[in-house]
Structure formats: structure tokens, C-alpha cells
């Protein structure tokens, strides 16, 4: 237990430091100052999608173990189908690129980089004067989790390290057993399709591209980090390529739907008197 506590506190420390630095460097002091003064109104404004996301997360936390039981009993057992489909791609990835430095990089990205990547947009988009983007982000996160949970239940499959252990080393756990204590708390080994690490990372990267005029500095960082997380899920032996493809599809679908659900124009009227508007419009629905 103390091992878990130490990795959690280390994670909290590093990620909050990174958030602080990124907020100042990317969001900028002026927006942060506005956010600070206007925080209450802005949080109230996003209450509906925020409550939606919280509801999905609670449902996931509460229902996960019983849904897991349903999955064990009735889920499609696709481990072998996935393996037959893609063969030893993950093994190839590992044997081709594995070095201790690369493993260290991907392990860190998988744990620290991912948490930062998913957390930072909350601050960045809340700091925008108009609420459309943050609302869409919340909706997209909720969709990722909700649909992801449904797919976890429908599909019962184990990841590469569980099927081809002699070819795919469980690198995260082999080199960083501390991380294992953490991810063991969060992850169920039979939930590999789709990769939620992939889908949330790709969601963030997609938003970063769509809002590149607001945060030009964030776009390349987010895309780089997201790509690293995606590769890390496979490089570390946790996910199949199929899971990554599924996760990417889930991400793009969630972003698309979030633009359908949250109307940018309605929001624009509300923010009409905002001087910040001159900085540039939101990217429009894709």
C-alpha cells in the first residue's frame, strides 16, 4: 500500500508542477487572471456537461466490476481473433525499438505524460472566455468513457503481454513495478479493446489541432504527447494495434459528436460582449 501511495504522490507532484508551468507558458497570465476572477460563473456555465462527465465516471467506478462479470460471462472472446488479425506487430515494435532509454521514456509518458495530457485542457479551455470548447471537451471525455465502458463489456480480450509473453515483455511492469501498483488499481487486464489511453490522448490532440489558433504552442505539444502515449500502449505490451485503431476511432467519433451536441453559435451570442472575442473565432464544427 505504501508503494501505491508513494507513486500516487509522486504523480500528483509532477503533474501539478507541469500543469503550473504549462498554464503560465501556454495559457498566459492574462487569461489565468481572467479565469481566476470569473471562475465561479464559468464553472456554473459548464455545469451540465460537467455533471454528465461526473455521472459517467461514477457509473464507471460503481458499475465496472459487475459489468466486468457480465463481460466474462457473455462478452465476445476476441483475444484470438485480434491476435490472428494483426499477428506479432507489437512484438516487432518492441524488438525493433526497445532500449532502456526508450522504455524509460514511454513508461513515463504512459503514466505522467498521459495524466498531464488529459488534465491540462481543463485549465486551458476553462481559461477561454467562451465555454463552447470546454463543454465539448467534457462531452467528448464522457463519450469516450461511456462508449469505452460499453465496449469493454461487449469485448472480452487480453492484451499482448498476456498472450505472447515470450515475445512481448511487459515492459512497464518489468522496469517500473511502482507504476504497476498504480495501473493495477485502475486497469482490468481483460479490458483491452478499445485502448482508452489512446482514445483520450487522441481526443486531446484533436481538440488541440482544432483550437490551434487559441493555443498555437499547445498543439505540437499535445500532438507529440498523444502520439507518444499511443505508441507507448503498444510498445509497453499493454495493447494490440487493433485496440489503438479502435481507440482512435472512438476519439474521433467522440469529438465529432461533441461538436454536434454543443453548438458553438449559441454560445457565441452569450459571449458577445467579451472583448477577448477579437482574438479569433473557435474552430467550427468538423
Amino acid at each position, binding site marked *: 500500500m*505504501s*508503494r501505491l501511495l508513494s507513486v500516487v504522490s509522486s504523480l500528483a507532484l509532477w503533474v501539478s508542477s507541469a500543469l503550473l508551468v504549462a498554464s503560465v507558458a501556454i495559457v498566459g497570465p492574462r487569461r489565468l487572471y481572467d479565469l481566476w476572477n470569473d471562475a465561479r460563473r464559468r464553472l456554473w456555465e459548464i455545469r451540465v456537461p460537467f455533471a454528465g462527465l461526473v455521472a459517467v465516471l461514477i457509473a464507471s467506478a460503481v458499475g465496472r466490476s459487475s459489468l466486468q*462479470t*457480465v463481460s*466474462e*460471462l457473455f462478452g465476445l*472472446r476476441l*483475444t*484470438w*481473433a485480434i*491476435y*490472428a488479425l494483426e499477428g506479432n506487430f507489437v512484438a516487432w515494435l518492441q524488438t525493433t525499438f526497445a532500449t532502456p532509454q526508450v522504455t524509460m521514456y514511454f513508461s513515463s509518458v504512459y503514466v505522467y505524460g498521459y495524466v498531464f495530457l488529459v488534465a491540462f485542457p481543463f485549465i486551458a479551455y476553462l481559461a477561454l472566455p467562451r465555454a463552447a470548447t470546454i463543454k465539448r471537451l467534457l462531452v467528448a471525455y464522457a463519450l469516450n468513457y461511456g462508449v469505452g465502458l460499453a465496449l469493454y463489456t461487449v469485448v472480452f*480480450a*487480453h492484451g499482448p*503481454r*498476456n*498472450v*505472447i*509473453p*515470450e515475445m512481448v*515483455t*511487459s515492459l512497464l*511492469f*518489468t522496469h517500473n*513495478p511502482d507504476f*504497476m*501498483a498504480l*495501473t*493495477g488499481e485502475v486497469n482490468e*487486464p*481483460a479490458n483491452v479493446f478499445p485502448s482508452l489511453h489512446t482514445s483520450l490522448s487522441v481526443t486531446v490532440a484533436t481538440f488541440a489541432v482544432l483550437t490551434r489558433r487559441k493555443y498555437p504552442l499547445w498543439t505540437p505539444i499535445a500532438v507529440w504527447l498523444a502520439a507518444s502515449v499511443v505508441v507507448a500502449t503498444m510498445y509497453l505490451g499493454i495493447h494490440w494495434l487493433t485496440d489503438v485503431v479502435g481507440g482512435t476511432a472512438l476519439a474521433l467519433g467522440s469529438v465529432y459528436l461533441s461538436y454536434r451536441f454543443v453548438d458553438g453559435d449559441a454560445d457565441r451570442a452569450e459571449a458577445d460582449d467579451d472583448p477577448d472575442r477579437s482574438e479569433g473565432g473557435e474552430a467550427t464544427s468538423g
Partner: protein
Amino acid sequence: MGRDRGSQLVLEIAAPPADTDPNAIRIARHFAENLNAVGVDARISTLGRTDLRRKVLINHNFDAYVGQFQESEPFDPDAMYAFTHSRFVTEAGWQNPFGLSDVNGVDELLARQRRSAGDDRREAVHALQQTLGELQPFTVVAFPDPLTAVREDRFENWTDRQPLSVGGLLGLERAGSVAGTEETGTADGDETADGNDTEDGDGRSIDGLELLGDMPLTDDGEDADDGTLRLVTTDERITENWNPIAAEYRRYGTFTSLLYDRLALIDDGEVVPWLAAGWERTDDATVELSLRSADWHDGEPVTAADVAFTYEFLRDTSMGAAETPVPTPTFRGRVSAVESATAVDEETVEIAFDDVNEAVAVRALTVPILPEHVWADRTAAASIAGIEFDAETTEAVVTNNEDPVGNGPVRFVEATPEESVTFERNPDHFLRRSADDGATSEDGTGPLAEIPERFRRKPAFDRLTIEVMGSDIAAVQAVGDGFADATVSSLGPDSVTRIGREADARLVAGQSGGFYHIGYNARRAPLSNPRFRAVLASLVDKQRLVDVAFDGYAEPAASPLAATPEWVPAALRWDDRETDPVQPFVGESGSLDAEAARDRLREAGYRYDEEGRLLAPNP
């Protein structure tokens, strides 16, 4: 099994994922690859421990599976009785999961080895192994070295044989040098049995006899959890279920054996009178046992009626309420050797055996004794929503047995499902109570006269915690880092190299009875055909698997009794062989001769289509 891809034969191989069992999945893939090479569409289905067991042992809804036999230690040949006798073909549990019907006289050989003794029994056991080798209801792959990582700075006297058996855990000693208490005698002596004498001698003079149970020596002035034995496992089942007879949840039943005493304990082949202080034969088939004075963990006394109840209950857990008996899914073979168990008085039981030899009779004494006042209420029919049961079953079989009321040397404290479980020493257990009762125990005539010295006044730990880890590698790491004292579950070859790197951890490779095997469902064609199964067996390169998948930490085997070589005829011993003596691998080491294997299948009457796919036989 089905014909969904044209009419090609499809075989599903059920196996646990690598996190659960690092070796089984490699056997499954080796087997699947070679099956594919001979034109079978083999698919592996990875399943968690309980799902796998439920599918195979309870629902019999499988084609083939890869798993381990449920005996942790080398075992008596009679273990094959339940595993292969056709009388159990309709029952759920560890009894004949293959659906093997009585062909080639297996039943008669099983019965003969039960009845007879000496050379006659040996002959029957030899013939049995030969027949099973030809019939291949299951293909024995290898006996693994049960690898365990232990550290000795807090507890010592780990046996190299079976460190995680009941006897191994009870034989542990508190490490004197690190505990830093008044226990001075132990620091410099490797011979811990002697050290123990000194400790207890001191203890008695300081604390007095009565206090020993409740106030362990090291409690005063020491860190509170210093006396906690901390184990780590990848097997979460002991944190959820404490039912000693549940086939899906027990691996070897070590911890439920610490909760529930048996009449006799078999430790390293030695029979130790346990809950029964002793026994004598009253006639050819009857034994009278006198029980030790003991209490259940809830304070009720353990009586002869509990013992009589247990044997009747395990034969039919519905106690006559169900239309057909619902026997226990584990210990079935042992119970079937007992004709009746009768309480003569409060402390005396008479057990009548069903014409069996002494080894089988002793084995029948090694079932967990259950409290009648708890289990008599669990005879009602049970079904769990969503979980199909092929046959009628009872509460007793499916209960998680929360807050277990046992009588063993440890009792249940608390558990967090999938995370951890805590047990504590039972201060009222006879190992402690009797030892403290009188000085007579030292001169060999006291109540513990038959109990080896290493078990007296045990267990040495105050508490026993078992924490669940995500993988064998993490478990080894926890031992190496000093977060745990030993690993419980099987370790794969990847974790072995890590033990060497950890200065304080040591690798123990003992002896196992839990052989890896591929089991076939003989209820389904073409697996019902022994000739077909024989060809499947010849697709398994056991030597290669041991070298590669087990990294040498296993012994390839042809016979399920290979752990007890004295029972194996020379023709079935592996010794220095390259391949199986009965079902030799088709090919040279490592590479399958697929064409030769296909020819064998053709000879056995199976057909291929023009694309080389093996056709499923018509029903």
C-alpha cells in the same frame, strides 16, 4: 467446436492469460500453432482463473484446456481415481472433467489399485499409467519447479521442498537476529529448531504459560506488525472466497487448510495425526479415531458429530434433499473411499472404509472438517443469476463462505476483494494450547506427542496477510524490496532472473504435484476418439516446451505420477529421453513434421479438403 469455417475442424483451447499463469499460455500457443500446421483451426480463449474452472470443471463446456493439476505436492496414485473414473462422469468438479467413459479397463485398474497393496497395487498402478498414456484423456506436459521467492530477514526456516504448504508455513520461525527482542538464542544458529527451544524456554520463564497464546513474545516493545507474515500472490481468489470445497476458487487449498483442520496432515509424505490425536483399526475396514479437544473459531466445540457430518455432507451436499446427490466438487475421490463415519461419543469417530488399502484410507482422512452448525444450513439448491449450472447444485458448493468459521491454526480477520486478505493466529488451536498445557509434551507422551517439534507452539506469525499483485514480476519485486516475505503464486521464467538481482531474496524451487496438462473434452467428437487424442498428444514437444517456455524450470513427463518415480514403470520414465515414450513428438526437436502428423490423422480416418484443412467429422 464447430464447423463455422466451411467444414474445417475448429478447436478452442481455453487457457489463463500470462498475468495469471505465465507458463500455460505458452503451452497453449505451442499446441495451437502445431494444430494449425496440421489443418485444424485452433483458437485460444484466454480466461480468468474462476471462469476457466467454471467452464471446464463445472459446465464441461470446452474443447481443450491448459491447466495444472490441483495437488501441490507429489501425491498418491489414488489421486487419479477421482480424476479419471467413469463413475464421476456426470459430476461437476475435479472428478473426471474429461467425460472419459470406461474403456480399456481404466475403472477396473483404478479400483484394483485402491483395494490391493504391495506388488499387486504397484502392478495395477503401472498398468493404469500405461493405459492413460495410450488413451490420453489429458496430455501430461511437465511438472513445474514451483518457484518461490522468499526473504529470510523476518521469518526463517523456509523449506526448500514446499515453502508455501501448510507444513511449510507452520514450520516457519521468527528470525531472531532482526526481531531484536529478548530472543537471543537464535541469532547465530542455523539450526532453528534448537533456537526455537531456547525462545520458548525463555518465554515460559518470563511470561508464564497462560500468557503465551494471547501475548506473543515479540509484541511487547516491538513494532505492532512485526509478527506479520506478508505474502504476495497474483491469485485474487483467496481475497473473495474461503469455501474449502469450491473447485473454481481453490488452487491447492493451502490457506483453507490453515483455516480448516483435517483429521490427518500429510507433510512431505509423512502422516501426522492432526485433528485426530490418533487412530486404531478395530477391524479390517474400520478405524476408530479420537479427536483432540478443539473449538471452532466461533467458540463452539469441535465434536465427533461434526466429523461424521462432514463425510456425509461431502458425499451429498444436499443431505438427501436433492433428487440426485450433489457431491463435493473437490476431495471427491477421498470421500468416495469412506463408506460411513459415525460418532461414537463426543470425541470418538468410527470410520468404515470401502475396501481400500492403507494409503487410500489415510488420504481419505485429509479432507477439511466442517462445522455442522454452519454447513447444515447450506444444503438448499442454489443457482446464481446469469451463471449456468449444468446440474443441480447447492448453497454449500457455490457460497463464498464469508467470515469462515474454521478450527485451524489461523482464523479469518478481514479481506478487501481483489486486494488483500488478513488472517491471524488462532490462540486456542491445539498446536499452541496443548503445547502450553503441560510439560508432559516434552517427554513424548503428552497430547502433542505425535506432532513433529517444528509444528509445536506454531504458527510463529501473529498475522498472515496475502496481498494481490498484478503480475509475477511485481510479486517478486515486492519480496526483493522488502514489502513482502514470500510469493505464493507460480513464477514465470521472466521473474526468475529478477530474484538473483535482489540481494535479500532467495529462490526456492521445490517439488510439485501440479503438473501442467492439456485436457480434452471426450464428450465431443472427434476428441471422443482416443486415436485422435493420441495424434494431438504427439503434436506437443514437451522437451522443447520445458527448455523454452519454462526456461528449464520444469521436468517433462509422460505420466501424471512422474513426481513419485517409485510408482512409475521404467518404460514411462522420462529420464534422459528426448521425447515422450508413449506418444512421441512428430518431428525433430522444435520443428513439427506436419506431413507425418497429417498422415497419422488420415490413417485414423480423418479427411482433408483440397486446401489442406482438416474436416470436422460428421456427427
